[in-house]
């Protein structure tokens, strides 16, 4: 969907909850190198990336927006550390919707001899959902890999 990169320093990282694989942030506030601020709210971050999101951390941050989800897919820090990760959960939800709604529709048509448009619509919506989230993940990977070897310049004294 949309990916972007910013160079700056984390001013604030307010975590909402942390799970085994990923974390949800209430907000992550960056101080950009040009002096302005940017805040990323309700962001999902995989834990290897989340571990580097600490106040004061300077580096290049890779952001994404997919449908109604925002996240931080990667980071390359000033001190040479880097991490990347994008969840596949929403892609899998899309596939799950297509499969289960198709099965329910088949059940309706063959056993109940009627059709429920709700299940048909949900099944159809699963298709673009899968492809949009998959494309977002691939775009995020591409953006991160295109910067391979990049290391943010040291902070000016």
């Amino acid at each position: 969907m949309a990916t972007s990169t910013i160079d700056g320093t984390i001013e604030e990282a307010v975590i909402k909850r942390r799970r085994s694989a990923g974390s949800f942030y209430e907000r992550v506030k960056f101080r950009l190198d040009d002096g302005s601020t940017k805040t990323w709210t309700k962001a999902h971050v995989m834990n290897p990336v989340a571990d580097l999101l600490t106040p004061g951390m300077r580096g290049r941050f890779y952001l994404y927006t997919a449908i109604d989800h925002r996240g931080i897919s990667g980071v390359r820090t000033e001190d040479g550390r880097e991490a990347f990760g994008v969840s596949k959960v929403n892609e899998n939800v899309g596939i799950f919707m297509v499969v289960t709604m198709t099965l329910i529709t088949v059940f309706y048509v063959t056993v109940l001899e009627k059709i429920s448009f709700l299940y048909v619509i949900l099944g159809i919506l699963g298709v673009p959902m899968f492809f949009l989230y998959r494309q977002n993940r691939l775009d995020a990977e591409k953006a991160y890999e295109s910067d391979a070897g990049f290391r943010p310049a040291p902070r000016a004294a």
Partner: protein
Amino acid sequence: MEGQVYRDASPLAAMARWALLADSLVCAAAVAIALTQGPFALTFGDFATIFSIVQLLTGVGSLILFLFWFYRANANVRAMGADGLMGSPGLSVAWFFIPIAFLFMPFVVMRDTWKASAAPRDWQVQPTNPLLGFWWAAFLVSHIAATVALRISLSEDYDMLDALGVLFLISDATAIVANLLGIAVMQKIQGLQVSPVHLSEHFR
């Protein structure tokens, strides 16, 4: 930002405003007729057909113009430097027509467009204006009531005739509220986008 070019949306906003006002007038006439001549005057009355056509034209016409303006407004905030907005201007409009998602996504993209108009560089922390919630609630009630009424009329279930009249009345009355609030939302966003402060900050 994101390949969008800023274009003044004022002409589109003006056209959409007049179309919404025209639709409000037609809806107000429908409410007045229903209250004075009974709820079925516009369903089975002498001029039911012609009134339905006029109402359809003003309703669809105002929605189309409103969405044209919204597309431009959404593209403009991207041009003003806002990133992290959902999808594209086209998808922002498409949400109005996607089943199930149309219940909440148009509100979300309109809210984000408003926030990004107020502060393009750091829009996510901007507060949500309650006007948006009232507009979207009225819009939803109006359209859901109209849809249910249409389904009842198509089913030819004569036991539901009373409900049909009430639903059309609710739909018309809330459409007036939704249109007027829609105009207010549009003007607020438009006012933020043409602000010289924003223009000087983002286009110098």
